[in-house]
């Protein structure tokens, strides 16, 4: 009975953190607007940088998409943690008598939702602008798995980065070398689905994404306590 109520408490705390992030964002819409406009700008820049004609598009679309998501994601991760730190919210959260991992998962789920919103808006815009159908179940699966791993590591690292003196420049430097496996696997898998390759050629990359997600969600969950300790 006691155990059951502990689990219920954990989920209530987790949900409270997620709800706090979502409703704060719903009122200001600062972060999502910034991420979205930034994502569209990145796509626009790629259009000039790569001369995205019909032939080039088929092969580079997955790369362009993932670079866009990664850049916009960093922006969101940094901002979401910086607001916590600046207004002393993080200290308040840590003082609350809840499990620290509930805070971690709450922040991570909030970040994940922001990333999904950006992706859900970017995909149709990209589809229209470049006349290519991006709504394929396989691609959506890759985006789901890739974003989970990216956000799992990113939430932990952004918690560290905002506590450093060099915080604005630190997060991408810490994050990008660690998410190289996600980027490779996600770009390859997305490219595979877009070119209608058979499942057998894509499954390796999907497996790699799943392995990465499992390992890093577990490790970040274990290490989060140490990065918020005072």
């Amino acid at each position, binding site marked *: 009975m006691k155990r059951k109520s502990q689990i219920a408490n954990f989920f209530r705390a987790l949900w409270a953190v997620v709800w706090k992030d979502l409703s704060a964002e719903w009122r200001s819409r600062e972060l999502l607007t910034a991420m979205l406009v930034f994502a569209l700008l990145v796509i626009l820049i790629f259009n000039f940088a790569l001369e995205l004609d019909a032939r080039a598009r088929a092969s580079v679309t997955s790369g362009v998409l993932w670079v866009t998501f990664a850049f916009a994601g960093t922006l969101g991760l940094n901002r979401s943690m910086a607001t916590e730190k600046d207004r002393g919210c993080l200290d308040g959260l840590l003082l609350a008598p809840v499990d620290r991992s509930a805070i971690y998962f709450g922040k991570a789920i909030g970040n994940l939702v922001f990333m999904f919103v950006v992706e859900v808006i970017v995909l149709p815009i990209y589809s229209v602008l470049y006349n290519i159908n991006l709504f394929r179940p396989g691609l959506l699966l890759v985006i789901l798995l890739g974003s989970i791993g990216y956000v799992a590591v990113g939430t932990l690292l952004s918690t560290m980065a905002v506590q450093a003196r060099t915080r604005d420049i630190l997060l991408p430097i810490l994050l990008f*070398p660690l998410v190289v496996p996600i980027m490779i696997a996600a770009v390859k898998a997305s490219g595979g689905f877009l070119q209608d390759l058979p499942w057998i050629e894509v499954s390796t990359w999907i497996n790699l994404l799943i392995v990465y997600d499992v*390992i890093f969600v577990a490790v970040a969950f274990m290490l989060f306590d140490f990065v918020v300790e005072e």
Partner: protein
Amino acid sequence: MESKPRFLSILDSITAILFVVAVVMVFFYAPLERTMGAVQKVFYFHVATAWVGMLGFMVAAVVGILYLVKNERKYDIAGLAAIEISLVFFFIAIILGSIWARPVWNTWWTWDPRLTTATIVELIYAAYMMLRQGIEDPDRRARFGAVYAILGFLSVPLTFISIRLLRTIHPVVVGNSDPSGEGSFSMTGPMKTTFFYSLFVFSVIFVDLFWHRVRMGKLAAKVEELRLKVSA
């Protein structure tokens, strides 16, 4: 101030002698490789320095875990020492590899899995150094350093696997040989002796440098402590 331990001085001399012997062995004992000639001799120190690099990163991850569990300053000093040494040795390994690759692969650099992974590894630990520089509070610096060392070490094998899935031309000399590797060769007896001896010597060099660096780290911590005491 504590003086330099006697055994450390002895280890310094032993390391120097062992290293000179290794150089002599590479140039005079190991035979010339038939197709590649003299440039193949880079290989002995290339693998040895890369090995020391990986060893240090592994040590850093292990002492990182120990630090988080036991919360003792000495583990943090050891972690920083290991990563500093390994950054330098790994860089030497990359340079030596380029020297070898120029005549054999006909290019200084190629985006092969091991080379790419090596670059990413260097970037991970450069980020580790930047993270430490950005934090003043020694306790927090130690905790964040330990966390990042663990994360970095975990991601390296995944990075390697993911790049490996995109084909390789790097030769696999030890263990099962991959015939598709360009510039692969099989080692004769004296070559093997020289190779394993180089690995051993560089491990000793690592231990020696590590000891020096840990000692320096402890002295630096003491200086910091005294400075705080004076200014207080």
